[in-house]
Each structure stands twice: as structure tokens, then as C-alpha cells.
């Protein structure tokens, strides 16, 4: 709401925009110079406020207001018997004791603990390779890995959904040919792995390019020094390059964690294929969506959305704070 307050003083400032010659003409005296500087100052303030206003309004309307409204809704309960009434933190109490919500959170955390290190490990490996090798193959490699980033997540999930399918998929004919028996990639035991594969496919290249950009920004002399000291390529990579890009790695890790906690698109696309596995509460976000749009439980859905947003927000701030030396942010 502070935004609205900032727009307040703007009209009081604008009138003094008029004496523009103060800056251009050489100062004739002490007093004149001061008014000139002052008018430039207020004029700059007005200009700054004017330029930032559209963003400020959008920020207020589509970030502050939805969050405030969701918070307000989450403090109320609406029932057929009791009507709509203020219920303080009852919804939050329910959220953090709701086995459906907690199971979803646990699932997403387990998913992240396995998928994130694999993906970022592959991204780092790729980045180190393209930083070191400058062959034609390396160029093809760079482009191919980044290509899935241009594919909408829905289409990525659709493609893999077909590939996993027991009727269309190559995996099944492969397992048939090898005689290993049926592998149900959309079954209970493998679903998280299958989803993890989609996310890894989609985002490895993106993270690789971010890390590669960081590697490109390192001073080359350090490598020469390392080589003179007898370090091989692998030693240089692990002991010099990796520590020096730790800030970029912290950032990619943080954005990946934010993404993982919001996990929605891939399970939602595969939901109709495997409805017995991907239940309406499969991830917290999917649960919030289904509560709102399947069961019309808007108050409770708002509480879950708000909790999820708050957890992600506080979590990423704490993460940045804990790693502030490495991330280079103050």
C-alpha cells in the first residue's frame, strides 16, 4: 500500500517544473544557482515518479492487491450453515494439519531433493564442457540442450506423456524387445521419476547457459596460473572454475527450488492419463487449484495459495541471506 502513498506528493512537485533554463544558462549568482539546481531536482523527481507510475500501479494491482485479498479471504470461512464469517487463522490451522496438503509438500520436497541435484549437476557438466571445448560438436551440443527451453511446458509434458504411454511409447516396445517385462512409467512407483525426467529435459539447458555465462565472465589468467602450478583440466574445473561461479550456482539453485515448490503444469497434463496416481492433491499448487475450481472452496484455497507463496518467499529470502557471501547479493 506504500505505493499509493508515493504517488501522493507528485502533484505538489509538478508546478516547479517550469524554470527549465536554470540548468542550461550559466549561473549568475548564488541564489540563482540554487533555484536552478532545486528546480532540476524537483523536475527530476517528477519525471522519475511519472516514469515509475505504470509499473507502480501494476505492482499494486497484480501483486499487492491479490496477496492482500487472498490473505483477507483466507481469514474467513464460508459454510452453508454458518454463512460467511471471520474465522481468524482457522484455515491456516487446517492447512498445516491437512494430510493432503502435507503429503503434497512432502512429495514435492522428495522430488526436489532428487531431481534438482541431477539437473544442476548435468547443467554444470554441460557448462564446463562448452566452456572448455570449442568444436562444432560443442556448438550443436549447446543449442540442442537449450532447445527445450523454447518449448512450452505443456507441450513438453504432452510429448513425454506420449513417449511414456504403454500404447504409443518407444519405452514399452524397447522393454518388450529386451524381455524385461512391462515397465509402467505412469504407474505409482515410477511417476515421480517420469515427472522428474520431463523437468530435467526442459530446464537443464537453461541452467547450463546461465552457468556458462558465469564461466565466460571469469578472468582467463587464473587458468594459466593454475596450469603453471600443474593443475590438469579436471582439477582446474573442480577447484577453480566451480568455486568461482558459486554465486551463479546459488541463483540457479534458488530459482529451481522456487519452480519446484510451484510444480503444477506437468502433473496437471499427465493427470488424465494416470488419474489413479496423480490425485487432486498431488502437489500443493494442484491441490489449491482443485480446491478452488473443483470444490469451490475459495477460502481454503486462498489459505493454501498464501501459505505456499509465503513459504517460497520467506524460504528464498532466508536462502539468499544464508548464502549472501556466495551469491554476491547484499
Amino acid at each position, binding site marked *: 500500500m506504500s505505493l499509493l502513498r508515493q504517488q501522493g506528493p507528485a502533484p505538489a512537485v509538478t508546478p516547479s517544473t517550469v524554470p527549465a533554463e536554470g540548468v542550461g544558462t550559466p549561473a549568475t549568482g548564488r541564489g540563482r544557482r540554487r533555484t536552478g539546481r532545486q528546480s532540476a531536482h524537483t523536475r527530476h523527481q517528477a519525471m522519475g515518479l511519472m516514469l515509475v507510475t505504470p509499473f507502480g500501479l501494476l505492482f499494486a494491482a497484480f501483486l499487492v492487491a491479490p*496477496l492482500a485479498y487472498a490473505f483477507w479471504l483466507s481469514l474467513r470461512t464460508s459454510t452453508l450453515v454458518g454463512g460467511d464469517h471471520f474465522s481468524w487463522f482457522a484455515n491456516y490451522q487446517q492447512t498445516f494439519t491437512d494430510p493432503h496438503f502435507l503429503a503434497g509438500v512432502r512429495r514435492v520436497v522428495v522430488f526436489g531433493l532428487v531431481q534438482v541435484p541431477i539437473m544442476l549437476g548435468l547443467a554444470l557438466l554441460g557448462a564446463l564442457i562448452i566452456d572448455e571445448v570449442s568444436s562444432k*560438436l560443442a556448438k550443436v551440443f549447446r543449442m540442442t540442450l*537449450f532447445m527445450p527451453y523454447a*518449448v512450452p511446458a505443456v507441450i513438453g509434458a504432452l510429448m513425454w506423456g506420449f513417449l511414456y504411454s504403454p500404447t*504409443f511409447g518407444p519405452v514399452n516396445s524397447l522393454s518388450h524387445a529386451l524381455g524385461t517385462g512391462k515397465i509402467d512409467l505412469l504407474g505409482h512407483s515410477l511417476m515421480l521419476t517420469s515427472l522428474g525426467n520431463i523437468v530435467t529435459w526442459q530446464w537443464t539447458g537453461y541452467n547450463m547457459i546461465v552457468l556458462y555465462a558465469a564461466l565466460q565472465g571469469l578472468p582467463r589468467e587464473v587458468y594459466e596460473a593454475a596450469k603453471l602450478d600443474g593443475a590438469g583440466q579436471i582439477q582446474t574445473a573442480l577447484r577453480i572454475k566451480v568455486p568461482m561461479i558459486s554465486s551463479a550456482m546459488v541463483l540457479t539453485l534458488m530459482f529451481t527450488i522456487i519452480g519446484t515448490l510451484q510444480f503444477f503444469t506437468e502433473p496437471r497434463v499427465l493427470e488424465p492419463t494416470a488419474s489413479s496416481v496423480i490425485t487432486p492433491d498431488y502437489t500443493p499448487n494442484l491441490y489449491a487449484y482443485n480446491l478452488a475450481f473443483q470444490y469451490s472452496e475459495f477460502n481454503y484455497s486462498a489459505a493454501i495459495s498464501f501459505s505456499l507463496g509465503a513459504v517460497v518467499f520467506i524460504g528464498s529470502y532466508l536462502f539468499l541471506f544464508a548464502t549472501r557471501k556466495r551469491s554476491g547479493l547484499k
Partner: protein
Amino acid sequence: MTTAAVPAPAVAAPAPRRTSSARGRVTVNAVMVAMILYFLMPFWWLVVAATKDNDALFSTAALWFHSPGAFFTNLQQLFTYNDGEYLRWMGNTAIYAGVSGVGATAVATFAGYAFAKYRFPGRNLLFSSLLGAIMVPATALAIPTYLLLSKVALTNTMWAVILPSLLNPFGVYLVRVYVQESLPDELLEAARVDGAGELRVLFNVALPTLKPALVTVLLFSMVGTWNNFFLPLVMLNNDKLFPLTVGLQSWYQGALIQSGANALFTLVIAGSLVAILPLIVAFLLLQRYWRGGLTVGSLK
């Protein structure tokens, strides 16, 4: 490879080193080839599957061509199915991505420039909340935004997708960083001394210099909207307003519900291929801008 190129006479035993580096090169190349195959596989499958008719899709090897001629039948079906709703979705997607992209870029440019070059009351507070806003999960915002927009009867309109997409905190951050790095105060001051007003300074001096940053922000916000799924899924009920992502997903769901041999499967596949082609082409042509945008996040 750099080791081979740099003469290293001082190193005591060149011969064993060279063999180990040759073995290393083979390993690295093998890793690259394996990863390329994995990352290309779904694209390969999509191209192959788009050339199959419905029967062949179910009955032939998934990763090899069977009835290439069916590609054109599939395309024709794709564009005519249900009164050409695919084309309508394409048009919608173009509108959403175009309007949001241009709008978000304009808003981000003005704000980023203001943050970098002007002092005004509330500047620090707004800028630090902007950094926070980058971390607020967009999908956690979608449902509250829906509830709010339904209060003012804006849901199920194009505005419900366009307006929230205009807010691009990361774009503001990117422009600010770029302005600070590439636009010295002296340049702006010189224009002012020559008698240019603030708006002229912005449009005639600053904007031309900022072009690469603007293209980058434009690309990222356009692709962001083009790929968005959760927001339009939440906001829109009317399938005439769907973007491609929501439309394709609804076809897929429809195909699964009807199950068995179903023409919708071939449509989903052909539709996916047609939908990602422009993105891949744009991405290959505009590579350096992607790199530019991503670098800001990693180096700052």
C-alpha cells in the same frame, strides 16, 4: 582444445599427457553425443509422429516414419477441426504474447530507467519490494488474482490474461542494470545542456542505446506469455479465448476421455509441432539476446 593450442615446452613429460587428454576428448565427445541424443529424442519423435495417421500412431514403431504422406492430411485436419479452432487459438496466443510483450517491455523500460537515473520519494522502498516480487511465485498469485478479477467481472476476457502479464519485475531489474552499465550520466547531462527536455533525453538519447536490453526484455516477456499455462487455465472458461497451451491440453484431455483410436491424438501431435516451430526458429535467430538476458541474472 586449448591445451593442444598452447605450446607448453616447460612441461616435463608431454607424451603421456597428450594420450590422457586424447582419452579425455573421446570421453567428453561421448558424453556430448549421449546428451544430444537424449535432448533431441522428443523432437525427433514429434516430427515422426506428425507424419502418421491415427492407425499408424498406435501400431508402428514410435521412433520411425511409417506413412509420411499423412503429414499433410494431419495439417489439413488440424486447421479445419471444429471450425478451425486451432487457428483461433494461434491468433489468441499471438495477441496475448504480442500485447503483453510490448506492454510489459514499455512499462519495464520506463521504470528501470527511472530507478537507474532519477531519485524520487519511495524509490528505495519500491525497488527493494521489486526484488522481493521477483521471488513471489507467479503461480501462487494466479488464484488470488483470479478471485480479485472475478470481483470486477474481468475473468473470462482477454484482459484477464494480458493485464497480469504486464507486470514483469525481472524486466525492470534487467533494464536498470543495463542503463547503469551502458548509459553514463555525462551523456544525459550533455543532452540536457544542449536544451533537451527530460522526455527527449529518454526517447532520443537513452532508448537507442538501450535497444539490446529492450529486445531481450521483449523476448523474455513474449515467450513467458506464449508459454504460460496456469494463468489462462485459471482465468478462461470460454474455449474461444484459449491460447494454444490450454487448447492443446484440452484436446489431449478430450482424446484420453474418448480413448482408443481417436483422431484427436494426431491433432495434438501435429498441433504441438506447429506450435513450437516458430519458437524454435525465433530462438535460433535471436540467440545472443537470450544469452544477454540470462547473463544479468548470473553475473550480478
